[in-house]
């Protein structure tokens, strides 16, 4: 069997951001269900939070190639 362990490493590294992004959208859905008129106000913060958390997963992809070579 051949291949690179960095693929496994990336899979492990993506767990954290996966949970984080899930929490962000869950909180948004919950807050909008409780107070529907706040949906538009909180939406930009949802995307900012999503982007900040997602960056961690994307670092995994980039560094997997940078340091894997």
């Amino acid at each position: 069997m051949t291949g690179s362990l960095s693929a496994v490493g990336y899979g492990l590294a993506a767990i954290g951001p996966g949970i984080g992004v899930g929490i962000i959208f869950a909180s948004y859905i919950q807050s909008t269900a409780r107070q529907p008129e706040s949906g538009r106000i909180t939406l930009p913060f949802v995307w900012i939070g999503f982007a900040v958390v997602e960056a961690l997963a994307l670092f995994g992809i980039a560094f997997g190639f940078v340091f894997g070579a």
Partner: protein
Amino acid sequence: MHSLVIVPARDDLPFPPTVEEFFPPALVDGTYPWLTKFTLLVWIAVGLLIVFFLVAYRNPKMVPSRGQWMAESIYGFSRENIAKEMIGHEGVKFAPYFTTLFCFILLTNLFSIIPGIQISPSAHIAIPVMLAVISYVMFNYVGIRRHGFGKYMKLSLVPPAPWFIQPILIPIEFFSTFIVRPVTLSVRLFANMFAGHMILLVFSLGGFALLGANSWFIKPISLLSWALAIALTFLEALVIVLQAYVFVVLTSSYVSGALAEEH
């Protein structure tokens, strides 16, 4: 029967795809870094945007034509939903920059799913880095001009906390504001486009690899692989719009942070 289907020979199939895919050769011999697919696409994107907005606003009417309506709604979106919402009333003066940034990123990203082009210039780190540097210089310049250098540094580096905790907090704030921000801004766009292109390559080339397999039980799985490639193209379309939006929203949030009076 076999010869009816054009299948690349197994040995010259570039599977699994490597990073080499992101370094296309020069279009004309001897012009390597200056005239590749990426530079050509960037020039095309810039030209298309200039022509589109000039044509759309050449003859403005009260009842807009379709082109004028499109241009106005893109500008209106950046102005009302991004600039005003994130920065407040004085954000209007940044709306032209946000519109340009949004349109440029959206268009260059769109190249990654247009058949025949299939790769985005943003999948090369140089272009997101340049865009992030522009945003970085802009939000720092705006903040320094508003508060003066000393006060801007104090506002962005010294959080309201007891004095004995400051030696820990100030390096963290410096690291997060002046180093992490531009790096994440560029790496986010780059890695999204890079990963998107890589995933599409894996599934479309993987289909050929499965079709070229020796066993007849494995060959039909290539259809599944291509179906996934098509489905992931739609996911990629979502990511494209989202990343253009996120880049602009984060830039505007940094600008609003630089302009804010309190920490």
